[in-house]
């Protein structure tokens, strides 16, 4: 049902403004801040990807950083074989999506916390594999040819995350697919019984949520020109994806965006003015704990317009502990 009402018109104007600003920003700010903004964009994309899986489908993954790292390595390897960058990045995305589909088939059978632990385990296993394989450079990492045009990377990131957010928005909020995905989140057994091909949907969502991190990983690799297991496959990447989305608001479009901006800018500002990374951890830990305790729907719920999920609203049923036990 598409009817363009005032709210939609207003939204479109906002979006158009944002797009214009986003396009001209590189010419207005210094290259240092541009790098920071590029970083923000990347994390928006990463958080949003994680949100697709965890927020909309309810499958919390603690190993999602692995797709980012794999994307980085695939891109690095492809480029070392002479494949041009954009194609390498696309190959990386395809690879991570396919890989997710394969890994997802057995893993998605697990529920709740087991799924979380399993993803954590396989992400670490992947890091270990990369450390011992000969063609990844192992602990020495890999270098990529240097392409030092900051604007290029900014636009690459921008395009990718626009793609991510747009696709996420369309699929989860506008298409019927989104309803099916949310049905799985709310009550998987019922969804299955009602005839949804739950397995297929789960795997598609998992693959989709892995596709974008793969590409982002590829852009990152080319941008930084040097990758190694601790910089692209470290648990901290998966951790940040989780924290940003939870902080911002699970299962909403604006949540991951807000969370990414707040957390990443917070980190960078802290770094620029105080230069202390361990204190950042304290703040992040506090933020997570406080948000879960007092603001479980995330920061986004503080902005009533953005926090609205769809119409019609699906009321969250309070589940008794009984349901948890029977999973």
């Amino acid at each position, binding site marked *: 049902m598409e009817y363009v009402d005032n709210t939609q018109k207003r939204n479109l104007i906002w979006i158009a403004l944002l797009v214009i600003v986003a396009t001209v920003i590189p010419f207005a700010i210094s290259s240092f801040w541009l790098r920071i903004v590029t970083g923000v964009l990347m994390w928006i994309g990463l958080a949003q990807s994680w949100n697709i899986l965890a927020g909309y489908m*309810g499958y919390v993954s603690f190993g999602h950083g692995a797709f980012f790292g794999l994307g980085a390595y695939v891109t690095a390897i492809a480029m070392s074989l002479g494949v041009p960058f954009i194609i390498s990045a696309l190959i990386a995305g395809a690879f991570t999506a396919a890989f997710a589909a394969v890994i997802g088939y057995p893993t998605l059978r697990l529920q709740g916390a087991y799924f979380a632990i399993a993803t954590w*385990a396989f992400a670490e296993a992947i890091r270990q594999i990369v450390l011992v394989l000969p063609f990844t450079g192992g602990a020495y990492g890999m270098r990529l040819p240097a392409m030092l045009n900051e604007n290029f990377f900014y636009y690459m990131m921008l395009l990718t995350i626009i793609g991510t957010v747009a696709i996420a928005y369309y699929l989860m909020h506008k298409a019927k697919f989104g309803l099916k995905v949310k049905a799985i989140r709310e009550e998987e057994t019922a969804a299955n019984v009602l005839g949804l091909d739950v397995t297929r949907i789960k795997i598609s969502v998992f693959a989709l949520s892995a596709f974008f991190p793969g590409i982002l990983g590829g852009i990152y690799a080319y941008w930084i020109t040097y990758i190694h297991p601790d910089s692209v496959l470290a648990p901290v990447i998966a951790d940040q994806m989780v924290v940003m989305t939870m902080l911002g608001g699970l299962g909403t479009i604006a949540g991951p965006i807000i969370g990414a901006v707040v957390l990443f800018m917070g980190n960078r500002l802290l770094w620029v003015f105080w230069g202390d990374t361990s204190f950042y951890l304290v703040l992040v830990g506090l933020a997570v704990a406080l948000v879960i305790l007092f603001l479980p729907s995330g920061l986004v719920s503080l902005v009533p317009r953005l926090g609205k999920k769809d119409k019609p609203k699906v009321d969250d049923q*309070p589940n008794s502990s009984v349901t948890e036990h029977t999973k």
Partner: protein
Amino acid sequence: MDLFFQTLVNGLLVGGIYIAVAAGFTLCFGVLHVIDFAVGEWVMLGAFAVFWLNFFTGVDPLIFLPLIMVLFMVVGYYFQPLLQRVITNQQSNALLMALAFTFGMSILFRGSALTLFGFNQRSLTTFLSGKNFEILGISIPALRFGATVFAVLVTLLFMFLLYKTKLGLAVRAAAERQDVAGLMGIDSSNIARIVYAIYLGLTAMSGTFLGSIFSVHPDMGLRYTLFAFFVVVAGGLGSIQGAILAGIMLGLINSFVAVYVGGQYIFLILFTVLYLILLVAPKGILGKGW
């Protein structure tokens, strides 16, 4: 042949260490159904507590064990309601929220430790450090042996507590059906606090041993969270017998892979094994998990 037996013994002792960390963890899970992502950080906090006590008094760390136990039990007793709030706060996926909350806690603890204590490596020395004894030509490091003995004793104590005492009965009842247990006059929320307190006390005590065997620094927690997850998931969440078996199994894998295959594959194999167990036997190798 000597190498084989030495490796075997080393494996058993490594398993003992795994069990020491996991014993409390599996209890916590079995009763409270909370997966504490911060278990490694509690180990770290316990290790640091002992470190500072030892630093200022010069008394052997192992003597502080009872003090650590009491200290962390008190902390646990008052911390648990916060956790409880998270669980009851949520409408759905309460357990995941609890996991995420403890995850946030682990970051908080690690960050605080780094900020307060700095990045330096520290070491704990006890009277057992560096000593070993030989049996049939096999060297047995005294400290690891002590840690294993500690783990075994603790686990036996648990099983006794759980299955032979009234408190244990109340705990098991509350674990199975919290609402019905309440109807039977069992104060489940108090039980939950007691259990969590015991879990923290035990985990912190294992920190004393682990700090002495390895080293003490704010990042050490991750390694032990790993151990705990391995053992508890492989053994079946909540099953103490499973934890013992899984701990031994993982210790043996660790030891034999290190010696006969190559050090670089240890973690790879361990993580893959963990992943496969989750896929094939999510209730643990004994099938008694939750």
